């Protein structure tokens, strides 16, 4: 793969102008995600209302893949039910680790499939997965998650 496949316009745009940036004053759920190997670090806040993601925001620092993945995640899960959001977490993780063939299997990822290319870049998979891993933690009200050690989402997925 080359950078045109991974660093597509939509990813570069979300990196430059992240959507839903900031913290929710009235958050019902929060989590912090950390990728200690490269310094990606995000804070996620959610407002759940009757099992639905009414609002979501993130802020932090990280590479383009992590920031764009975070930004596009927020736009995609806003308004979804918790069950729908969790299904997207699973599908995104499976796509990034190469277990979900997005070309042939039905999924709910839509434009998020622009991240499919990371499956060929093992060192970057965690950058893309971090926000989704953090979302999963926020939905279950764990406060801090890491991409390393016991919580390694890539290891857990394999």
């Amino acid at each position, binding site marked *: 793969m*080359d*950078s045109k496949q991974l*660093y597509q316009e939509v990813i*570069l745009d979300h990196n430059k102008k992240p959507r839903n940036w900031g913290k929710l004053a009235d958050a019902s759920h929060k989590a912090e995600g950390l990728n200690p190997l*490269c*310094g990606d670090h995000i804070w996620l806040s959610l407002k759940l209302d009757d099992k639905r993601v009414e609002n979501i925001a993130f802020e932090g620092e990280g*590479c*383009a*893949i992590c920031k764009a993945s975070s930004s596009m995640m927020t736009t995609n899960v806003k308004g979804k039910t918790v069950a729908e959001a969790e299904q997207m977490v699973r599908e995104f993780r499976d796509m990034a680790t190469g277990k979900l063939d997005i070309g042939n299997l039905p999924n709910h990822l839509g434009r998020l499939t622009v991240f499919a290319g990371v499956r060929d870049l093992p060192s*970057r998979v965690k950058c893309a997965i971090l926000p989704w891993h953090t979302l999963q933690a926020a939905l279950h009200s764990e406060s801090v998650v890491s991409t390393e050690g016991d919580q390694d989402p890539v290891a857990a997925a394999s």
Partner: protein
Amino acid sequence: MTSANTVLQAIKPAGALDVGRIRADFPILNVEVNGKPLVYLDNAASSQMPKQVIDRLVRYQTSEHANIHRAVHALSEKATAEYEGARRKIRRFINAKEEREVIYTRGTTDSVNLVMQGYGRAFLGAGDEIIVSQLEHHSNIVPWQMLCEEKGARLRVIPCNDAGELLLDDYARLFNANTRFVAITHVSNALGTINPVKDMVATAHRHGVPVLVDGAQAVPHMKVDVQDLDCDFYAFSGHKMCGPTGIGILYGKAQLLEKMKPFEGGGDMILSVTFEKTTYNAIPHKFEAGTPPIAAAIGLGAAVDYLESVGLDRIAAHEHDLLTYATEAFTQLKGVRIVGTAGNKAAVVSFTLQGVHPHDVGTILNEDGVAVRTGHHCAQPVMQRFGIPATARASFYLYNTFAEVDVLIAGIRRVQKIFG
């Protein structure tokens, strides 16, 4: 001198490195990455191996291998002679006074841990102080922190300025009646700063304090004379100096090594064993328990031969030219910050691009076949000092060319274009 050499002398400046001929020694430089010729600029992490060393490993494994220091049969005698012969080469290479001051380890990290376990745990106690620098690799911080935690000792840190140079007046002021040990790097892996370790050793010795120098980034690139430095311990790795992984060296002054406790127990490190009492072997064997990586040690000896045949002074001069050329080229680029601008610097360019995370830089450069390291370089305190999470780092060695610097610079321009 052969006629080929005479011709080369005629067309090249006297004593300069013939990089074309050097490159022919390294088979891996023919590899293509993403359809592009490999431009290997990650030498501070690990260097490549010339065919002279590869061939030596194959010859050992095909015709000389047996366990060492054990049997009277021919192969064991041969393997022992080659293993100890490599130690002699390494002694001469770093100018240690005696062969028994040269201990084989698994690498620099293992060497530092050996000193922490064998010297630190035996001679440091509650309230004692250990001085390290802001520029240390984690491997020269964490073992000392572990010791501090165990003993109730305290870590003191030599600060650095914005260029990445250690502040020597602050260093001198850190010494007090409780200072027991100094552990400093010769060359910073993250920034390339060459520290004035000879002066720093002299300062410590005026206070009667022994010094360990982490030479992992120095020995491959410059002539190191441990007696001239007068350091008490000096640690380095084989795989950063054209040798194999899994082998490294700890040099230590004999009188210190002799009073240290063994790090690991087992075979080869003993003279006699009964269930009542074990008598330890003499140095260096006291610290070499179990069957060592014999092939790797012999390979390291071959790497020393190779570097000496090229000449450390010529390697250093070539790398200095590459650094000057690269630094000039980086300076022409807009939105690039070189992190680490010491006056005395090894051929390392650590940099950040405005608005682009180093990992994105690394991924895109990889498509051009360019291998750089991105991240914190196992030196998070350095990153914290400069207020950044990570850098991209190009680190050069004897086989790198000016044309490769051009490929790197073109790659950085492409990154900037993509991130516009």
